[in-house]
């Protein structure tokens, strides 16, 4: 019996391979987008863990100096006072002639907590002796080892996958030399096992601040919002995909009502039938899930290089551009596919359970929904919308931002059918000819069947408008900001004091404006931050992008009476003009201005360079801007600078390069959002296609009378196309305001939470037009196939409708 039932149920798919394909495709696509995002997140997370694991140092509390700088003597003094601490010296250095700077991390193996060295040291026959002596040994990714092959003056580089990309892990003695910071210590790691009866820290090191360790690394914390963003997109794509699955499964159940009734009449128990149906769904979901994981892997592999570049550019997080296969996200993807299919099938299975044994097997209009049901759904939408709008009012944070987005999108989607129905009624009331009236009425009648697909389209369109507006607004603001802020023609970083002096001499000799800059890392309002020192130069006064300014802001900053802070810090700490910011023991300044500082995840403050120098005598300017005054070209100036000072060419970048780099970082940041956007739109297109295709088969009884009244098949097909375009256009009209609301939520809520900056909103009607075109195209393409089939349906089929009243 079971076997016969199974074969009866499955024969449906044999007879309708298109439907099977739709179901599999929908679920596979949903799974693919979801698992692509998961794969990218997993890869990034794995590399953060590697970074945290190879050094493992974030886990431990650390001691930093209140005045920013520690020396080897401080380490020794603490050890001799009975505190088990270990020194870390880290910084960025340009090694050799070429390429971007690398991060150098120096540790003292003998005092470091256990587990900080890569296994390679033990595995590759390396001896501690090699690591401690000169030239020493260091660990880096194979790529970096390759890059520095043959570069003189470096320690012996050993490849280790455990070291994060872009980093060189070495002995502190070697790091001193590479960073040219002899005798310095960035911070001290506090080991977990402290000796019995030690003196309190306040007694032995009064000038130090103990910062608690974190389970996740600094990078993981900073990038959390970025990954949450991606996950949200993954969910959106998955949701859109589920619309397809829901539609396909619902249809399959409706079409098998007859089979199910027969099976029940033959004595099959409902429970067993439900199990069979569930098993069928699980098998289909498994197949689709596997397909989706494969697809997802391909998508992730294609997107990962851009994501890696984003993370590197925006957060300094090192993520490899190559995807490794991790069974965890694959299994998660599969689970999502199964769960999604079950959710989509729930309604259908529920209906089978409740179906009376002798219920009529007459196929009803599938998913016939009354106006009342539409109203109920719309009411749900309003509720969701209200909920989404309320949450950010009562709660803070990124999650609240996403709740707002979810409420907006889902609420709007649920309200869509009612809105469309009302629009169509309105159109119907204004139609002059019977055919037009039939067209409006028929369109309305199809609405229930198409509503899921149209809701998917609305989601995709609204997300597209929203994200497009956000990215566009950001790009406009960002390029304007870059133009303002990058005022110098050349940017040079000096490797040491001698180079710094050479740069100053060169600038004086050439009569160039010199903008030296020094910075020191120190905690700002309790979180890692930087304090920058700038000189008083008209270029800054004219160009520095201040969002808020007190009167005579620059005069006060340059005379050491005030400080400027970046927007991130101001928003995070709720600081306003005139508030006081503590910069160290006994040093606090009022805030005279807030500047925008896109791309920097940390808090930053600016004081006059000489004020910084007084507080931190050991911090010397190492980065210089050269202002030519207009006539000299960057290239020529650069060539002369290189020739006269002997600075490594990698240490000099000109304005155009900086802009190019910044913009490319920017573009890459949103490359993934753009890609997911397009893919989501594609999924929505497929949803419409499948909905139309399945409706087409059922619509014959409705079309036959019109045909019988003299409309040609071709005319009917044209009407079908027109209908699809009309619905797409109406949906777009509904999606546009939703999209703008989404954009506002992204700019004013999500961005502020995720990145710490608020952006002005710009609108881009041209891209809306393009999107409308795209939506119409998708609808047209989706309707083309069913319409063509209608146009070619043999008249006999139409006749059968009358001959064979079902």
């Amino acid at each position, binding site marked *: 019996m079971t076997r016969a039932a199974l074969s009866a149920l499955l024969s449906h798919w044999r007879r309708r391979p298109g439907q099977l394909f739709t179901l599999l495709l929908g679920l596979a696509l949903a799974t693919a987008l979801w698992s692509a995002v998961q794969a990218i997140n997993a890869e990034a997370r794995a590399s953060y863990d590697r970074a945290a694991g190879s050094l493992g140092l974030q886990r431990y509390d650390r001691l930093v100096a209140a005045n920013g700088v520690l020396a080897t003597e401080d*380490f020794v003094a603490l*050890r001799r006072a009975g505190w088990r601490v270990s020194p870390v010296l880290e910084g960025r250095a340009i090694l050799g002639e070429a390429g971007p700077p690398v991060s150098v991390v120096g540790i003292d193996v*003998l005092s470091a907590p256990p587990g900080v060295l890569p*296994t390679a040291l*033990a595995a590759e026959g390396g001896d501690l002796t090699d690591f401690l002596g000169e030239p020493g040994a260091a660990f880096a990714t194979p790529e970096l080892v390759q890059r520095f092959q043959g570069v003189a003056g470096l320690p012996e580089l050993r490849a280790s996958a455990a070291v994060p990309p872009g980093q060189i892990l070495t002995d502190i003695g070697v790091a*001193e030399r590479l960073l040219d910071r002899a005798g310095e210590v960035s911070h001290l790691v506090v080991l977990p096992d402290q000796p*019995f009866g030690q003196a309190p820290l306040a007694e032995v090191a009064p000038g130090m601040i103990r910062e608690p360790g974190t389970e996740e690394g600094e990078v993981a914390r900073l990038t959390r919002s970025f990954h949450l963003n991606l996950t949200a997109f993954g969910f959106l794509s998955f949701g859109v995909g589920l619309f397809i699955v829901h539609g396909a499964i619902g249809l399959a159940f409706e079409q098998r009502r007859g089979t199910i009734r027969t099976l029940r009449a033959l004595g099959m128990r409902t429970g067993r039938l439900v199990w069979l149906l569930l098993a069928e769904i699980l098998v289909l979901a498994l197949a689709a899930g596997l397909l989706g994981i494969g697809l997802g892997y391909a998508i992730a592999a294609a997107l990962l290089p851009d994501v890696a570049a984003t993370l590197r550019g925006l957060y300094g997080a090192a993520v490899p551009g190559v995807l490794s296969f991790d069974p965890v996200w694959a299994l998660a993807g599969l689970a999502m596919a199964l769960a999604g299919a079950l959710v989509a099938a729930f309604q259908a299975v529920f209906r089978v359970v409740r179906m009376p044994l002798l219920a009529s097997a007459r196929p009803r209009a599938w998913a016939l929904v009354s106006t009342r049901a539409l109203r109920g759904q719309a009411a749900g939408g309003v509720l969701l919308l209200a909920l989404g709008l309320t949450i950010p009012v009562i709660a803070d944070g990124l999650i609240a931002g996403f709740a707002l987005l979810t409420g907006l999108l889902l609420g709007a989607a649920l309200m869509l059918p009612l809105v469309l129905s009302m629009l169509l009624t309105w159109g119907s009331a204004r139609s002059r000819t019977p055919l037009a009236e039939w067209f409006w009425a028929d369109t309305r009648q199809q609405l229930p069947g198409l509503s899921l697909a149209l809701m998917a389209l609305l989601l995709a369109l609204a997300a597209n408008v929203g994200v497009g507006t956000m990215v566009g607004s950001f790009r406009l603001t960002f390029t304007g900001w870059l133009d303002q802020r990058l005022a110098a023609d050349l940017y040079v970083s000096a490797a040491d004091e001698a180079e710094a002096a050479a740069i100053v001499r060169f600038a004086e000799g050439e009569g160039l404006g010199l903008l030296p800059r020094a910075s020191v890392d120190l905690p700002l309002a309790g979180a890692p931050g930087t304090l920058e020192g700038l000189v008083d130069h008209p270029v800054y006064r004219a160009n520095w992008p201040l969002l808020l300014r007190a009167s005579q802001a620059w005069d006060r900053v340059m005379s050491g009476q005030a400080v400027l802070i970046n927007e991130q810090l101001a928003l995070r700490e709720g600081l306003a003009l005139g508030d006081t910011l503590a910069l160290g023991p006994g040093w606090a300044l009022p805030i005279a201005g807030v500047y925008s500082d896109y791309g920097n995840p940390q808090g930053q403050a600016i004081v006059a360079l000489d004020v910084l120098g007084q507080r931190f005598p050991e911090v010397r300017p190492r980065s210089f801007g050269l202002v030519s005054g207009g006539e000299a070209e960057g290239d020529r100036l650069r060539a002369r600078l290189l020739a006269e000072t002997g600075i490594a060419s990698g240490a000099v970048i000109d304005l155009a390069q900086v802009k190019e780099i910044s913009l490319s970082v920017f573009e890459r940041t949103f490359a993934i959002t753009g890609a997911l956007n397009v893919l989501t739109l594609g999924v929505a297109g497929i949803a419409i296609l499948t909905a139309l295709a399945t409706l087409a088969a059922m619509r014959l009884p409705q079309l036959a009378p019109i045909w019988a009244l003299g409309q040609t098949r071709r005319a009917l097909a044209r009407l079908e196309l027109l209908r699809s375009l009309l619905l797409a256009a109406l949906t777009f009209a509904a999606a546009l305001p939703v999209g703008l609301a989404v954009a506002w939520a992204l700019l004013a809520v999500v961005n502020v939470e995720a990145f710490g900056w608020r952006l002005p909103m710009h609108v881009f009607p041209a891209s809306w037009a393009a999107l409308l075109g795209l939506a119409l195209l998708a609808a047209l393409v989706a309707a083309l196939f069913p319409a063509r089939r209608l146009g070619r349906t043999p008249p006999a089929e139409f006749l059968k409708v009358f001959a064979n009243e079902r």
Partner: protein
Amino acid sequence: MIRPSRLSRRRLLAAMASAAASPALPQGFAGLGTDADGFALPERGRRLVFPKDHGPHPAFRIEWWYLTANLTTEDGREGGIQWTLFRAALAPLGPDGPAAGWHSEQVWLGHAGLTLPGRHSYGERFARGGVGQAGVVVAPFEAWIDEWHLRQHAEVLGAGHDALDRVEVRAAGPAFAYDLSLRAEGPLVMQGDEGYSVKSPAGQASHYYSQPFYRVAGTLDLPGERITVTGQGWLDREWSSQPLAETQDGWDWVSLHLDSGEKMMGFRLRDRAGPPFTSATHIAPDGDETPYSDGALALTPLETARVAGRDVPVRWRAVLSDQGIDVTLSALEPESWMGTATPYWEGPVRIEGSHGGRGYLEMTGYTAEAG
């Protein structure tokens, strides 16, 4: 899971330890001998000069300041402490002497142990030379690593006193600390031939002297408990450059305070390829030493205990017939396991037999595999 860094440390320590026990190859004519790697070699007939030789000898590969003390608490419990500072040179000295800063070739290692009945605690420290985290200076004498120290007492002693006659020692681990002051009641004792101690039939040797006559008083700090103790201490100083021979698995070493006032030092180097090599020094109550070469001392395990997954002898018979010494040594606490990067057994023993007394036993090279 074996942590890689521990593995490396273990390797380092193994190198240090093997270098330690060990005895130089035939050498030593003009006193300028160096081994193949460029380290200095001990020379017979070189008179040790104090206080200079209390200080480090960075041209040698390995060196230690090794203090043990048998203690009695106020309420009559017996126990002991160990305080050791190892120095190892990872590379021979350059022409300019020890390198400064992080690039120093000198590595330091501290071990501290505390044993009471039913309890054994230990601590371990690593440090690099060159930055001041660990080291030894001669005047005034101080050997230190982190907050641990063994240093000359501030009390001013008259001429004729050695810098090590009055010292104080401190160490602390995660669950213990001790502060003891030590006063020597006898002279320094040269081991072997005037401080030239031969370690193998092939003639490998080290420079080796001891101060076995310490009276000890001080406190032990345990969580929630401060214990006043008194007792006897023994300081060993030794430096050399040669690693153990391939076939040498480890050693058993004892320092004995006999109730008669006599002292005895003895060790046995176990050799897979042949009989163990033994050596002993008998020290009369006035400090007169009598060195004994291979074969004079018989050290025989009587009973083993399962400690840290291996069978370790915790009862021994020690016979030095020439001095009429025939005693059994029983571990006060069989679990005196030093679970340090290179693990070994080190703890106080009780002496019974021809003589009564107390002493310290150290056993290395008992591997879990060898069981």
